[in-house]
């Protein structure tokens, strides 16, 4: 989507001088330059969501913290991606995510292949200081090949977006509000009875945790195949923004 006519901006990320197209986000430019900004809801090839708040960065001269995934570069911008304050906020946000659902790695199919787990390790979130909420959430195993365990869902909406934007089925959606929000298939019908689901499995593979998984996988066996993602990106690039 980098238009040939787009102008070039120069900016600083963590003190490093970088150049970028004006239609690139801070996150994209940081990645190009090997600067790590944590993300969870973001997935290259899908529309931005801005919900996990892990990619928040500091920009000099701006009071608010800005999500790198939807903040476009500007000339002379000075971005800090990893201050002590940001690190603390990110750890607390991860703690909040862990406290919200029932994330028990040792019994999870995605153990060892989980974006949430590896991010917690990477960001040094060694314990959860907010009380666990231990919600009672349902599991939907009505689909022939896949299953949904809402206990492990972090509401990143990657499944909703990939199904709508790439597969074009729009089987998934979010129902409810706030802490009660949860994902549903069709109009809250069992997944196995969904008339729109094409059983393509894209949602399972983009899911960052073990919330969506293939049946028949045991603990730590659910490795997500994201090899098709470059194709998704390509497909999106052919669309007009």
């Amino acid at each position: 989507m980098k238009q040939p006519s787009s102008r070039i901006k120069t900016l600083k990320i963590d003190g490093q001088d970088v150049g970028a197209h004006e239609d690139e986000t801070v996150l994209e430019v940081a990645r190009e330059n090997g600067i790590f900004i944590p993300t969870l809801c973001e997935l290259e090839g899908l529309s931005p969501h801005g919900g996990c708040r892990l990619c928040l960065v500091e920009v000099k001269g701006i009071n608010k913290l800005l999500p790198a995934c939807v903040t476009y570069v500007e000339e002379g911008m000075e971005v800090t991606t990893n201050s002590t304050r940001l690190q603390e906020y990110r750890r607390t946000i991860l703690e909040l995510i862990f406290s919200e659902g029932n994330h028990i790695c040792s019994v999870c199919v995605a153990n060892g292949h989980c974006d949430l787990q590896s991010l917690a390790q990477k960001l040094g979130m060694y314990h959860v200081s907010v009380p666990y909420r231990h919600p009672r959430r349902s599991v939907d195993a009505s689909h022939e090949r896949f299953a949904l365990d809402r206990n492990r869902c972090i509401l990143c909406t990657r499944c909703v977006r990939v199904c709508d934007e790439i597969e074009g089925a729009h089987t998934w959606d979010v129902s409810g509000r706030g802490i009660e929000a949860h994902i549903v298939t069709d109009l809250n019908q069992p997944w196995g009875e969904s008339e729109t689901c094409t059983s393509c499995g894209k949602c399972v593979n983009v899911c960052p945790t073990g919330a969506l998984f293939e049946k028949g996988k045991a603990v730590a066996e659910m490795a997500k195949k994201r090899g098709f993602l470059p194709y998704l990106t390509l497909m999106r690039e052919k669309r007009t923004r």
Partner: protein
Amino acid sequence: MMIEDLQKISDAERAEAQKYEHHVHVCMETACIASRSDQVKQALTEAAERAGKPCRVKGVGCMGLCSAGPLVKVEPDGTMYKGVTPEDADEIVQKLGDSPVSRLECDTNVPFFQRQVKIVLENSGEIDPERIEDYVARDGYLALYTALTTMTPSEVIAQVAKSGLRGRGGAGFSTGLKWTTVAKSPGERKFVICNADEGDPGAFMDRSVLEGDPHAILEGMTIAGYAVGASQGYIYVRAEYPLAVERLKIAIRQAKRLGVLGENICGTTFSFNVDIRLGAGAFVCGEETALIASIEGRMGQPRPRPPYPAEHGLWGYPTLINNVESYANIVPIMRKGADWFSAIGTEKSKGTKVFALTGCIENTGLIEVPMGISLREIVFDIGGGIPDGKKFKAVQTGGPSGGCIPEEHLDMPVDFESLLQIGSFMGSGGMIVMDETSNMVDVAKYFMEFCMTESCGKCVPCRVGTAQMYDLLDKLTKNEATMADLQLLERLCDVVKYTSLCGLGQGAPNPVLSTLRYFRHEYLARIQEANHEAAFLTD
């Protein structure tokens, strides 16, 4: 529609009014109707017929003192009656032109009425909101006509900018600047939206304006449409305001018939239509990007800004989105001039502000005061102080994103900056007064519960953070919390405030932070109580 037509309607309306010696205004807004003002109006009409008096009974908008409703005002002598019942109708009609019915009389020579300055509410209580002729007779649509026929769009924007008007939805962004941005944003189409999704607990300013003077909003929006180059407007009003919706529908129909809305307004090439969109009960849809998503038919969830709606709004087009009260200020500014408006208020906050005064206060109702008035004047003079000899404790402004202001800051002038400085927020205008019997931890818990249930669930800090903070506050109110819980609460306040996506989450910790700032001892007392209980149990 030409200026002569407006004049003709206005003259006819005034001539009709002159036929009557007495005018009886009955409040026909939600609060008064709830205490049977519709029956009062019916009874008064019948009584007037029976008595054969030259008297016209008219349903009007809010007259302010909602706690004393149903309110009835008799013109030209200006007598106000409170708590009128249908049974009082005959007596009131009998005494017209004679001495007033003393047992029902409401003294208007008190600060509640005297200290107010009416700009937004200038027609409220004076005109019949269901008759456009009544609005025209008070120079309605004259400002629109003048703007369309004698001013360029940039001149209109310049006048709004010069007035110093700031958005009345809460944050106080310069209205002129917003209009300029939309006007300058390139787009084949542009939209004007009126945010009437008023949802703060205890706030009913916008409802009163819509119910009492709907044409002022239509006229303000049409002027805005002309200024920014839009031809379509939407009023996003919550479905919980059926009367406001009904009156808006009537107003739109009448305005179209008169040619002041629709195609080729006032005989010019400018066309502007307004449609109503109903909110489905989500508080977060008052946030502009969520509101736009809701109009588009998508889930009412905010998206990160920038891009702001001024650049990328409804269906991706430049969109002007202002609050009801902001639009209500436009007509007076256009009619009386920017200098007149900017002479009212303080250096940085011009004009007036409408507040819905509620809680432990003598005079509950709707007030409009100049910016810069002190909170003390509002609470003790206009509001009449705390009933039953109780002591004042705090006043809460800014709804769930606001804060509690204690006695020591009552002399603060009410303007955007001062309220922020003391840890509160202007907000849309809800003002809840609390007396000494209120416990501030309970207050904080109440607002947190509101934010928790109204959080849309899109971003983690707001979705989970408000729920966790609510649980901690619940623990505190049950005397089960420890110092560690309080520390965690403070840490979560910080995270949620600075990392949430939209104003709902960013503002959600404010009630906790402000009560911690001024009433920390009440939190500590709860923890101490918990310690005592724990000690007792282990003994």
